[in-house]
């Protein structure tokens, strides 16, 4: 004991170094362990906001956030941008499950059923929302319906972004398929669509239609689901039961899409980037794409118009999803911050005209009904798409960037490439989906 007591008095250089080394080690350990929390710790009026919008969308979103910050000095939105798809959704789920998620985040509306039942999201308080001037009747019916889960509102849509068709007005004019109003003449049957596409191909000398899908389950699914829903067929997924689908309709759709990919109407082996490049360089007359590609084509200087994908099978329908605001569940809720979130979201909805410039259809109807929006071309030409949009079938594993679209790609790409029969591809897809439906629901 005595020896121990006397030690500090006679500290050698070596002991000092040793002590310092241990101290430094434990400090760095401590710092690295708390590093996450330290960096994520927000100041009093900071609101952390995660979103998945990059490129042109990201720039627009940043400008909208800056405006909201300028308009509302009582809070400050601090955005974090993550790559969309799996990286974003896994991080959001983990942050929420870990109890330290951002105060507000953007999600695709169709992904909410994978998050809400697990308690990862908090429901929106409609009374508080009304305080900031946002009411249910400000949203289109399909969008509002989608915002709910089990009777509560879990997501507030900023937009809907359907899968649409762009057409090159110059090429269409030369091919004689423009109407008297300068817009593409109505197409109402599969054979007519093939005919128009071939006419356009004769003008470009390359392809009539650009549709990129290789390696991209989302692209394959968007077109398929648009055409499937045009048949008026249902697609119902209930855990514990096999999928309820119309097999004949599905096979018909797959065969129709394959007939487009004949290397004349459209290339058999195109990916998303190739299709965009082809349409931008006037190598085709039509492009199947999401509305978010509008700014790209404007920048490219292509003379183009936009419309929904023609109703070829009787029922107007378009695949779509919505960028929606959600409230990740907070382990300890800060009331004043949450009020700030409501104010911020209300401000974003009311200023969504600038979001429409990126091609998306605003969800907030006062903006859609404004004369400024009516003057926005070609956006206003497909604004009615919001009435015919179809979100992914509801299940915990569906939605934009989900495994569901991956399963579709796994089984359908070979059909599109002409290597598998449509029936075989479809049956294999269904087998996979039914396996997932039979598993215990993890959310």
């Amino acid at each position: 004991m005595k020896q121990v007591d006397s030690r500090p008095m006679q500290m050698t250089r070596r002991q000092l170094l040793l002590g310092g080394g241990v101290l430094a080690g434990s400090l760095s350990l401590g710092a690295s362990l708390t590093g996450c929390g330290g960096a994520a710790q927000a100041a009093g009026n900071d609101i952390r906001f995660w979103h998945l919008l990059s490129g042109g969308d990201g720039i627009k979103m940043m400008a909208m956030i800056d405006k909201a910050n300028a308009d509302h000095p009582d809070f400050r939105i601090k955005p974090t941008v993550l790559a969309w798809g799996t990286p974003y959704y896994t991080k959001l789920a983990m942050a929420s499950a870990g109890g330290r998620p951002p105060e507000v985040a953007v999600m695709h509306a169709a992904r909410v059923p994978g998050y809400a039942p697990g308690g990862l999201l908090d429901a929106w308080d409609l009374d508080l929302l009304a305080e900031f001037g946002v009411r249910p009747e400000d949203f289109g019916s399909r969008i509002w319906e989608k915002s709910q889960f089990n009777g509560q509102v879990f997501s507030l849509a900023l937009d809907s972004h359907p899968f649409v068709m762009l057409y090159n007005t110059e090429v269409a004019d030369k091919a004689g398929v423009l109407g008297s109003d300068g817009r593409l003449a109505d197409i109402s049957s599969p054979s007519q669509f093939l005919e128009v596409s071939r006419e356009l191909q004769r003008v470009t000398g390359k392809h009539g239609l650009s549709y990129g899908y290789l390696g991209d389950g989302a692209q394959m699914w968007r077109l398929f689901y648009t055409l499937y829903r045009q048949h008026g067929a249902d697609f119902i997924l209930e855990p514990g039961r096999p999928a309820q689908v119309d097999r004949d309709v599905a096979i018909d759709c797959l065969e129709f899409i394959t007939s487009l990919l004949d290397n004349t109407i459209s290339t058999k082996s195109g990916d998303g980037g190739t299709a965009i490049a082809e349409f931008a360089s006037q190598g085709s007359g039509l492009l199947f794409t999401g509305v978010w590609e509008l700014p790209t084509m404007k920048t490219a200087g292509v003379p183009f118009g936009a419309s929904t994908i023609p109703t070829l099978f009787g029922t107007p329908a378009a695949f779509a999803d919505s960028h929606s605001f959600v409230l990740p569940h907070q382990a300890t809720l800060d009331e004043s911050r949450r009020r700030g979130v409501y104010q911020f979201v209300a401000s974003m909805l009311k200023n969504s005209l600038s979001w429409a410039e990126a091609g998306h259809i605003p969800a907030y109807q006062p903006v859609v009904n404004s004369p400024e929006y009516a003057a926005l071309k070609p956006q206003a030409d497909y604004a009615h798409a919001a009435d015919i949009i179809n979100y992914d079938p509801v299940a915990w594993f569906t939605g934009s960037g989900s495994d569901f679209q991956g399963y579709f790609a796994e089984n359908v790409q070979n059909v599109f490439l002409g290597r598998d029969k449509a029936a075989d591809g479809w049956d294999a897809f269904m087998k996979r989906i039914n396996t997932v439906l039979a598993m215990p629901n993890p959310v």
Partner: protein
Amino acid sequence: MSTARTTAPAKTSAPAAKSAPAATSPRSRRDNIHGWAFSAPFLVFFLLFLVWPMISGAIMSLTGKSLTGANSGIIGLANYAEAFADADMWRSLGNTLYFTLISTVPLVVIALALAALVNMGLPAQWLWRLSFFSPFLLASTVVSLFFAWMYNPELGLFNDLLAKVGIPPVAWLNDPAVAMWAVVIATVWWTIGFNFLLYLAALQNIPQQHYEAASLDGAGGWRQFFSISLPQLGPTTVMIVILQILASLKVFDQIYQMTEGGPGGATRSIVQYIFEAGFTGYRLGYSAAISYIFFGLILLIALAQVFATRKRSA
């Protein structure tokens, strides 16, 4: 016999260590404390980030835990039973072994050939060394992007070159029969520099006198390579093969970025399957069970290698 001989000295040294008076002296004890203190930061990290996750993973594999935080409690070996009956798991495992096989062979053989070429005394050696090694410094994302563009069926460099010699276009990353080879080509280009460097260092360590003596005896270049270089490179080859097999078994990045496991799951590796089960399928327990099955497989391969090399050296 040989094992008896190797254990004998250990037996005699053990009591010697025990009886050493220094072991209990205050100075030695102080040194011990210092030793532990200096090792402490590492030990803490080791226990916290390696040992504990392994234990916690093993426990998790016996539960129905979900990424969303829901925990359905201990379910015994149900996850393992499900995994063994899961065709996709076996397929991913098969893909991983296939990748390991078709990547390890060129990564060893070509690395040796490149090292031998450079060691021949070509002019501008630094340029060769740099060219062969530098791809290894690139991030997997960069390599994947490069190759994804070069493999593009419409605009890519490879199909353009094929077209020039009259070969029809290949759907590099979209043909199930070709996709894995496409990934292997990218991987070989990217990672061969490391093996090349190991071989080059080993080649340069072979005493020059051996070659001089051989050439006096009239041995030509090939004869010298097969009779001197190759046997001398034995230990290096064993090490490279082991390292390469372990690295190839863990493949994930470049496949995920180039094909996302497609087309139709033809390139999905077991690590990707573990990732998908846990992070996009939310089933952490199931994911942990598959990783332990994979761990068991790696352990078997490692043991087989230890056994094989011990036999050789005995």
